[in-house]
């Protein structure tokens, strides 16, 4: 366990020091949420109704923002080669990197979601539900994004390609997340359970896909 803990600590330190892994994501999230009323107009009922969808789309884009460097930085400085020489399997290393990324860059977004939702005139209950669904759904977005990041690790400007690859795969999480948060016909429990299942499935399978992509990219 000690090597993986050391990796987690390093990822944290790099993200904190490089300036802004965490804060830039949160500011991007704020900007996205803040420009929505300008586009949609000052109709508070409309904003409140669209609130969960807006917050989810903003969270999805902010998640992708930081992910493109997840493996690219390691590929450039040679760390990616050496992960193969460590005792823990590459799959475990990928999972720890994703966990570190989620705690340092995504968790702050979720924490500020109730605050930003106020700008969309949302009530307490939809705000709480949206925060809860983001908590359950962003691990899926992170893990799916990590597959895109691994596939584009060795490309110079892979960020855009990664977004194109990843966004369609994020649609199921988006559907169930927004459905659970806005409490439509399906209620809360069913879509939330589906969302949690997508997250758990991604956590269990995405590390293998990432590791396979990284092994290919090394050649």
């Amino acid at each position, binding site marked *: 366990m*000690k090597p993986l803990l050391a*990796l987690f600590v*390093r990822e944290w330190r790099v993200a904190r020091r490089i300036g802004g892994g965490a804060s830039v994501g949160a500011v991007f999230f704020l900007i996205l949420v803040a420009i929505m009323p300008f586009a949609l107009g000052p109709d508070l009922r409309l904003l409140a109704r669209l609130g969960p969808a807006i917050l989810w789309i903003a969270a999805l884009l902010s998640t992708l923002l930081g992910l493109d460097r997840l493996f690219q930085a390691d590929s450039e400085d040679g760390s990616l*080669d050496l992960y193969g*020489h*460590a*005792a823990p399997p590459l799959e475990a290393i990928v999972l720890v990197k994703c966990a570190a990324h989620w705690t340092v860059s995504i968790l702050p977004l979720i924490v500020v979601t109730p605050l930003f939702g106020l700008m969309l005139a949302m009530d307490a209950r939809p705000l709480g539900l949206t925060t809860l669904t983001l908590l359950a759904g962003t691990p899926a977005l992170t893990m799916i994004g990590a597959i895109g990041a691994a596939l584009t690790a060795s490309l110079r400007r892979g960020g855009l390609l990664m977004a194109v690859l990843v966004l369609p795969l994020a649609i199921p999480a988006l559907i169930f997340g927004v459905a659970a948060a806005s409490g439509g016909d399906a209620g809360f429990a069913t879509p939330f359970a589906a969302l949690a299942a997508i997250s758990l499935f991604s956590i269990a399978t995405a590390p293998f896909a990432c590791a396979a992509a990284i092994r290919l990219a090394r*050649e």
Partner: protein
Amino acid sequence: MRLVAENLTLERGGRRLIAGLSFAIAAGEALIVTGPNGAGKSSLLRGLAGLLPFSGGRARLEGDAAALTMAEQTHYLGHADSLKGALTARENLRFWAALLGGGALSEIDALRRLGLPHVADFPVQALSAGQKRRVGLARLLVAARPLWLIDEPTTALDAGAQELFAEAMRQHLSGGGLIVAATHAPLGLESARTIRLAGGAPV
């Protein structure tokens, strides 16, 4: 412990770089790979490090620690130094020691051996190219692994640092280690054998 390579064949981008290369080195021996640019020196080292598949033949480590895979007994130092610029030299080395197994010098002792103890707490991005390379070389000293695969290790090093690293390599060999190095410059290893790649077939 012995490193045995049998009939290695390596192809890159449709060219056959290495065909039918065989060699064996025993504990305490070094092998220097030379050859013109593009002859396949780096590719050979990456192949031995398990980062590139050989299209034929195989390389293996024979010896006492049979429970460990070859990758777990290998240090690979490529053209990149595998350092994070935002972290200090000490933090970088501590991380690699934890991930690669440790069991060797402390971070500060490793830096001292390469003449750099005074930069231990500087962010690596503030160091010069030669200093970064030396911190990268110090990684070989903080985790105990018998096989060193080193690619142009002395790039950007000044004469004094080259001598310090030569001394570190001699100590590694006298402790029963193995070294395969690709280089153009002499490394200061008198006893080392040399193979020359000619981009096609080994001569």
